[in-house]
């Protein structure tokens, strides 16, 4: 009820209650303060040195960098980004060149073998990074952008608006993203723009739900009340006051969504494969090739599949590292 703040858990012993799993000192207690000198400072020496605070932030970054999972993730993503940017300037063969023999097994000249049309699989895998890295991050970014706006409105205004939107979000969540995407791509066609739009639209409700719950936790804090007391507009409170405080979950959500976008785009390419363009999309490559596995020709499937796996795992390793460090601080 309205009198909820009449309950007074004192923060006092909470920080040192050994019942808690790990004792983490309050941020303002982490430094070893130098004894204050002037009388004025003695009166007011509640301050942790600025440099200490910056150290703590640098510490966060240092903690992330020290995680092996993060290093591995970043390395893999950088490799694929280089492939995507440089494309056929660094591939050993042209990804579209079909003059080699068909279905050659891996060998020195073609380390990943060649496909059913005699194209170099290694070159196609390298060039294939471009398609997915063009579509997935953009889709994730748009999804997060819309999700933040919708979630912010739901969480901040609450009431009937939140009720209605929550219902719609729930309905979207009732279906696997890939099914709705498949349905949409079937009616709208599978151009990159459509895929980006559809994936972004389908991510919006998921992101909105995360942002909504983060905003709900902020909305009842007194700084929001204080902003209202000085007459701030709703937009100001939402995007200037609350948004910076929910940036943690949003950053985490963005990294996680990029991983899912790669996942979704690849799966969509695999399942919606009709007649394929010659472009070397990974999902489409697997779709073209997997039927010949039973004939022992595994490399045309395995390498693009492994490429997908490596990219999604890498993105998720980064996301997980960011999340653990942000949540711990």
């Amino acid at each position, binding site marked *: 009820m309205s009198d909820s703040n009449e309950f007074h858990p004192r923060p006092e012993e909470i920080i040192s209650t050994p*019942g*808690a*799993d790990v004792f983490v000192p309050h941020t303002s207690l982490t430094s070893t303060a130098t004894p204050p000198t002037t009388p004025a400072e003695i009166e007011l020496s509640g301050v942790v040195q600025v440099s200490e605070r910056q150290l703590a932030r640098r510490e966060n970054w240092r903690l992330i960098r020290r995680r092996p*999972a993060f290093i591995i993730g970043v390395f893999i993503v950088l490799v694929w980004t280089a492939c995507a940017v440089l494309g056929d300037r660094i591939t050993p063969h042209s990804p579209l060149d079909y003059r080699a023999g068909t279905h050659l097994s891996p060998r020195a000249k073609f380390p990943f073998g060649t496909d059913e049309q005699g194209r170099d699989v290694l070159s196609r895998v390298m060039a294939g990074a471009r398609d997915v890295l063009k579509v997935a991050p953009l889709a994730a970014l748009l999804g997060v952008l819309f999700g933040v706006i919708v979630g912010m409105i739901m969480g901040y205004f609450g009431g009937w608006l939140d009720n209605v939107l929550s*219902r*719609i979000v*729930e*309905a*979207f*969540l*009732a*279906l*696997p*993203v*890939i*099914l*709705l995407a*498949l*349905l*949409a791509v*079937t*009616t*709208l066609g599978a151009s990159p723009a459509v895929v980006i739009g559809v994936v972004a639209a389908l991510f919006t409700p998921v992101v909105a739900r995360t942002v909504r719950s983060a905003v709900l936790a902020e909305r009842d804090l007194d700084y929001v009340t204080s902003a209202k007391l000085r007459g701030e507009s709703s937009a100001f409170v939402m995007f200037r006051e609350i948004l910076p405080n929910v940036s943690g979950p949003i950053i985490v959500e963005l990294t996680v969504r990029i*991983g899912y976008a790669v*996942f979704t785009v*690849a*799966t969509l390419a*695999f*399942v*919606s494969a*009709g007649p394929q363009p010659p472009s070397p999309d990974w*999902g489409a490559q*697997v*779709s073209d090739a*997997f039927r010949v*596995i*039973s004939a*022992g020709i*595994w490399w045309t*499937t*395995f390498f693009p*599949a*492994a490429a*997908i*796996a490596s990219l*999604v*795992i890498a*993105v*998720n*390793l980064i996301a*997980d590292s960011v999340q653990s460090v942000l949540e711990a601080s």
Partner: protein
Amino acid sequence: MGRYLLRRLASAVVTLWLLATIVFLIVNVIPGDVGRRVLGPFALKEDVALFNHRIGTDRPLINQYFSSIRRVFTLDFGNSYVSGDLVRKIVYPALFRSGKLALLAFVITIPVAIAAGIFAARRQDKVSDRVVVNTGLATSSIPEFVTAAVLMSIFCVHWKLGKVFADPPSGTSVIGQLRYLLLPALAMVIAYFGYIARMSRAGVIHGLQSDYARTATMKGLSKGQVMRRHILRNALAPTITVISVQIGYLFGGIIGVEKVFNYHGLGSTMLSAVISKDVPVLQGAVLLVGIIYMISTLLADVLIAFLNPRVRLETAR
């Protein structure tokens, strides 16, 4: 409890209606000529008109919407554009076949994942915990079709284990069918193990840190007793929710797995419907998946209410 159930059921019906509306909107974004799309550019104009009339796409959109909604709640999804058969007769057998595969996958996943989660939680931040967490993270982030293709490359081609085609010949015994289904099921186990393990780990860690676990320890219970008598019951509620959600989502991943293993379940049915633009079949299958999600989350909520007296008693008032 009764009122809680009733409220939960009512909200499921509303969600289902919204879901049907979303699906209807997606399918009808492009007003275009359905008959032309299905019959192709060379069909006669009269045939197209006749086709449109037969399937009802020449009626006003609002009428189509109402019949589409009615179909969800009567579980009658109309007739296939392509074969003219009842959609019901196409999707139900397919669902049954996918259900077998899904059931096998979950029977393996749930105990293994929960056990792994508890194991990891009890060794929090030790090497074995990191292994479980990171393996779970990695495997659950790989698309199912990728896992399926890799598994197939390894098991069927190199080691000659398992079957490339998951469809057992008719009349195969239950045990015999298992041999066919094991590999595709394994692909799904790998995909869903991670979420469930991580969630049960988080729940148990939360329980281990709780004040009531402290009380139980101070009473003089052993670690195992605290876990069994006090923590698990409270810790598994979020895991149950995750499992129920995964059951619904499994029908997304199953499409890829079925395609790789050439298994004729709901996923393959949807894919062929996509290729032939057979919207009623696709719509029916998609809605069926939505209904399964509704039922499984509903059951999960009932189970949670059963485990958590607060949910059961407070909402009943």
